[in-house]
């Protein structure tokens, strides 16, 4: 066997700490420096901050082409204080598969987290993701879903919701959002969850939990994007909360085949506020065709009911 190229890293004690029950218990260590080149109000820097606090320093981020390739900063600088392995658009999950195998071969328990966009996950990277899930790769895959191709200027992706305006759907998207969670579920990963930066404690806890499993875990992170969704950059958290309140985005987790609805979504799942309160905050749904709106509403309703039904299944 090829020996590791270097000694074991000495890990700060925070690495061994268990999950915070409250925001106050979340580790103070920062792995995202205050110098990302994200748009103002981008939810990505915020999400990454909590993701890495949960993962700790013995972590590698694998990042395919996406906003995150830009956000991390430009050579020779970086805003991320763990190794970041940048890789071609379609290759995040497959690169991570090899990396996990290599690290384990070298006797290392380093965590490998893929942080990929929705395009890199549901479109061009789907085959590699499916393969890595099927092969039970020991990694955490996080899909950062800003519901379009952000890096290239907001073209539609398979994850863009019905009706949304993007630069390639100038009349609103006529196809519904691809249900990546159902596709992933069909691979039966040990742990699967949804999250959003507006609920950072929930995100932190889910990442921490995901990393306790051997094998693949998947977190689908809705990522309000002021630039692409066309809302003022001070409203990222508000838009995120509204996504949850309207149940347009439902927070849940699934482990050992059981789905449980996360605390912030428990109320809204039964009594959502009108969807219009969420859509109306965003320019991308402006002038939405009534027929598309009703299909969008129907789809969100169906998803909500399916989650409720699964959660209440004995």
């Amino acid at each position, binding site marked *: 066997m090829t020996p590791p190229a270097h000694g074991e890293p000495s890990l700060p004690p925070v690495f061994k700490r268990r999950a915070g029950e409250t925001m106050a218990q979340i580790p103070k260590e920062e792995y995202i420096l205050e110098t990302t080149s994200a748009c103002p109000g981008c939810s990505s820097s915020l999400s990454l901050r909590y993701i890495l606090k949960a993962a700790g320093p013995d972590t590698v981020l694998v990042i395919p082409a996406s906003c995150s390739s830009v956000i991390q900063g430009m*050579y020779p600088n970086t805003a991320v204080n763990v190794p970041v392995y940048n890789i071609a658009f379609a290759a995040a*999950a497959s690169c991570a598969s090899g990396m996990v195998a290599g690290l384990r*071969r070298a006797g290392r328990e380093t965590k490998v987290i893929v942080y990929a966009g929705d395009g890199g996950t549901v479109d061009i990277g789907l085959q590699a993701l499916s393969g890595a899930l099927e092969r039970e790769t020991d990694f955490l895959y996080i899909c950062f879903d800003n519901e379009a191709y952000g890096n290239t200027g907001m073209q539609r992706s398979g994850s863009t919701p019905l009706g949304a305006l993007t630069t390639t759907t100038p009349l609103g998207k006529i196809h519904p959002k691809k249900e990546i969670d159902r596709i992933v579920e069909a691979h039966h990963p040990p742990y699967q969850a949804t999250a959003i930066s507006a609920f950072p404690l929930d995100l932190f806890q889910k990442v921490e939990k995901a990393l306790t499993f051997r094998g693949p875990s998947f977190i689908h992170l809705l990522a309000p994007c002021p630039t692409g969704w066309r809302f003022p950059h001070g409203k990222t958290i508000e838009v995120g909360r509204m996504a949850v309140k309207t149940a347009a985005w439902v927070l849940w987790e699934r482990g050992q085949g059981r789905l449980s609805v996360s605390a912030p979504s428990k109320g809204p799942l039964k009594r959502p506020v009108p969807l219009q309160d969420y859509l109306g905050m965003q320019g991308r749904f402006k002038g939405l065709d009534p027929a598309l709106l009703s299909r969008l509403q129907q789809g969100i309703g169906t998803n909500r009911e399916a989650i409720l039904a699964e959660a209440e299944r004995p």
Partner: protein
Amino acid sequence: MKEIVTANYAIAEAVKQAVPGVIAAYPITPQTEIVERIAQYVARGELACDYIPVESEHSAMAACIGASAAGVRTFTATSSQGLLYMHEMLHWAAGARLPVVMANVNRAVGPPWNVWADHTDALSQRDTGWLQVYVATAQEAYDTTLMAFRIAEDKEVLLPVMVNLDGFLLSHTMQDLETVEPGSFIPPLHLPHAIDPAHPAAYAPLTGPKDYYRFRWEMEKSMRAARRVITRVEKDFAGRFGRRYGVTEEYRCEDADILVVAMGTLAREAEVAVDRLRAEGTRAGVMRLRWFRPFPTLDLTGREVVVIDRDYSFGFGGVLARSLCSAARIEPFSVIAGLGGQEVTYEDIASFVRERRPGEEYWFGVKGDV
């Protein structure tokens, strides 16, 4: 140990002895025997390695990249469509300076479907930053694979190496193989830029016009250094195991007025043709080009040259012939022969030499319109 085996088997055997930590591969004719054998070695515990049965060649190379970045030795094998499917990741592996070793069983590219020998698959990847070597016997496939790990992992090189062998003509032909105990010939891999959470770094981040070219220049410097390293490694190999190859392998070239230049099995075929030509009084020789990248410096002055290409670059010419035109400043007789496994006998090769027309191109088998 002496055995009679196919070149595919010989490669699998060499890989087993080099003990990669991770192998990720996807099957394709005529490469399959290599990956099937390796999967067996791993399953039987004869090779302590993770075999990742990926879902595509793009993923095979991506997985090799990830594993290599973690600092472990990696190997894969492919052919034709699989190699083309990897294209994006071939650039990535080289640009990321990862010493991945790959066997490519040369096969024609579709359409139409054709599984027989042809060099267009590998030659269309010549600008990816991979070293490329073309072998002609099972023994050479074995020896070169062992050397490929050593060359790729040399700290002056740190670039991936592609070992090319002709589909079926070599991959499936039984020949003698004498295996060795590589021992210290392949030292443990020490990748200076292996991922290390104790020293966080951004790998391949966005890099501007002020810096990008520096990384490209570093690659070229390593390609140039590779010429030295190849010679050094071959010398060490010859010293330990008694077999020597060279950047080119020459047959009856010393006093030759006419050289046949080719790669792979065709060049071995040409040796028989040369014997015939010599019997007729034509002083011919064969130069078999082994290393295509880095491309060797060759002195062919004062000789007529017949180049046989088992490949083609549309709208330009035979890739080897054209490379020799620019690198060695010659005007060869360029023969395009053996495409998609087209049968080329040593008598055919002798007739290429007899009927040579320096400076012209000739498509073997095509009548009238070339």
